């Protein structure tokens, strides 16, 4: 699983197929436009974002007490509660619940947290089969790839590739690539999975401290199919999923699907509170770096994230490099600010995978200043010595150039001369700027030189 290539190198791989890049770019931009239409049709949209951000700020400032309150209410409701400090503890808990009931197969709905914990691999090593039931995640699972997008897990794949996978794994006719027909095949196959699994695991979108209920949002209905047919229902959630009161769901459910895909609400917003008679419900609260993030004043706002994916859909770098190039479960701008908190060395490249254009911050439903955090992570990474040597060297050279007028003028002249007389010296494979780009013609003189000559005439 460990990847040694950085974002730039992986993006370069993705960029080899120009048609795919163009399609990927367009598909995500189309979702961004749907988000805009939905937002514009919603009265008081900006006030809603403001309210959501303020509710989450309150949660962050009072997380300890809300978690205690949530735990008490879960227990009152008959739900078993577990605390996990990290992925290992989380996976052990899930395994022990299943082992206790002698369960060898589990169905799972979308959960980025369990992806991050590599739960499937952990359980498979111990003889337990896990099937991801969200269609996109199912496709990624049979292709042995992580999701490339938190809402649209296989957005980077073409339908012909999915048809090929279905041919290999589900025995569909070779060449079948019609999305409706493929979905019907998966529906039939997974229906049988739902009916035969005694255990189901879901993620959690929102957990209400006041009532001890948790809400799971899907469009496909897979979380409900798994959970309501199971004897043992397990939910895994990060500590930050808490919201104070039930009425606050109104704010978040209005924002989530509109921000994610431009839909007024997810088809299913299911409120799980108590096990049904004869069923067991378990809930695992996972820290996995959240309490560390809480200690970083510049970055703790990223705990507000409701995982809508809007920042990915709008990001020019994400759209053109693909989610897998981020080599992290959560990709795109939000992934690039969450990942360094977990492992700064391994994810040192991610905050640099951005143009800092700020579009992510503008669409974020909980108003996380994502691009500011990207900028701050860069400083943090350089300060602690985790940045790539090439970047550190070129930044130092740049600082020297900009601090001295003489060097600046000479460098400018040299650059223009080279662009005009020896473009190959710059436009070559050693300069990453020239990948997928061409430079415009350079002017003969700098603005400084032009102004010295013409400035007095125009007065």
């Amino acid at each position, binding site marked *: 699983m460990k990847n040694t290539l950085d974002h730039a190198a992986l993006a370069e791989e993705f960029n080899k197929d120009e048609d795919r890049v163009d399609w990927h770019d367009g598909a995500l931009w189309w979702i961004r436009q749907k988000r805009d239409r939905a937002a514009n049709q919603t009265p008081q949209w900006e006030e809603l974002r403001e309210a959501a951000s303020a509710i989450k700020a309150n949660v962050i400032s009072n997380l300890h007490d809300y978690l205690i309150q949530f735990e008490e209410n879960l227990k009152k409701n008959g739900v078993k509660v577990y605390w996990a400090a990290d992925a290992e503890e989380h996976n052990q808990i899930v395994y022990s619940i299943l082992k206790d009931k002698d369960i060898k197969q589990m169905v799972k709905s979308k959960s980025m947290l369990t992806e991050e914990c590599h739960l499937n691999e952990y359980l498979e090593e111990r003889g337990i089969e896990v099937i991801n039931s969200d269609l996109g995640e199912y496709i990624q699972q049979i292709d042995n790839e992580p999701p490339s997008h938190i809402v649209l897990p*296989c957005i980077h794949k073409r339908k012909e590739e999915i048809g090929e996978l279905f041919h290999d794994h589900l025995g569909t006719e070779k060449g079948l690539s019609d999305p409706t027909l493929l979905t*019907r095949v998966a529906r039939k196959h997974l229906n049988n999975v739902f009916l035969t699994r005694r255990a189901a695991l879901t993620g959690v979108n929102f957990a209400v401290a006041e009532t001890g209920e948790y809400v799971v949002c899907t469009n*496909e209905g897979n979380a409900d199919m798994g959970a309501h047919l199971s004897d043992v229902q397990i939910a895994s959630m990060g500590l930050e999923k808490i919201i104070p009161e039930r009425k606050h769901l109104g704010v978040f459910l*209005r924002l989530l699907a509109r921000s994610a895909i431009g839909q007024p609400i997810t088809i299913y917003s299911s*409120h799980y509170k108590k096990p049904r008679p004869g069923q067991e419900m378990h809930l695992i609260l996972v820290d996995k770096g959240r309490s560390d993030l*809480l200690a970083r004043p510049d970055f703790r706002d990223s705990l507000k994230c409701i995982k809508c994916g809007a920042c990915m859909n709008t990001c020019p770098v994400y759209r053109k490099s693909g989610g897998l190039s981020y080599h992290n479960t959560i990709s795109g701008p939000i992934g690039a600010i969450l990942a360094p908190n977990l492992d700064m060395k391994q994810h040192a490249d991610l905050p640099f995978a951005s143009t800092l254009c700020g579009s992510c911050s503008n669409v974020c439903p909980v108003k996380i200043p994502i691009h500011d955090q990207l900028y701050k992570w860069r400083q943090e990474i350089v300060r602690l010595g985790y940045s790539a040597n090439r970047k550190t060297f070129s930044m130092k050279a740049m600082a020297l150039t900009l601090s001295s007028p003489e060097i600046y003028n000479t460098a400018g002249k040299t650059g223009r001369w080279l662009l005009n007389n020896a473009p190959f010296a710059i436009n070559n494979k050693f300069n990453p700027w020239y990948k997928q780009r061409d430079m415009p013609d350079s002017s003969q003189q700098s603005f400084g030189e032009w102004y010295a000559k013409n400035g007095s005439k125009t007065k």
Partner: protein
Amino acid sequence: MAAVKKNQPPLTILPDISIFQVHEVDIVKKYSDVFTGIGGLLVSAGSLANVKDQIRLNFDQNKRIFTTIPSLSDVAELCDPQADPHSLFDVELAIVEARLAVAENGAVWVTEDVMGHRILPYIAQHLAVLVYEDRIVSTMHDAYSKIGSEDYGFGGFIGGPSKTADIEQALVLGAHGPLSMTVYLIN
């Protein structure tokens, strides 16, 4: 948890969310437009008698039709809450009554007491929901103020037929849940 307590910043206050008020001039029309806009089927049935006619007309009476509404027992089998949920695998149509419906997004609110079985509205091939027009509210804020602090084991908003666009963003109705959802409006 000690780390959470130690690291959390000073307490901030919760915002006032009573500012979110939307007054619809024609709330039934708004609901109908939004619900059909997201792929739902809507019938202004008016009365239960018309609902029965519609069900006889549109659904195969030889397949299993399940309901939790006693007055529909002549067009559907009454759901037995004691049955094993897995036995509902071949239900063609489930008919339930909405506690609430939300104009801004087309969703209906159902709790397990109107669902019979939690799985029923999800496992049926088709879902039909009776919506009394006076139970339509404008926004999710209004919905939660109606729900208040009600106790339930399970409750859900359902906003249309199940759907996916995971394959090349092509919209497909009928992912894992029902292939269609019909709302019968009753006044």
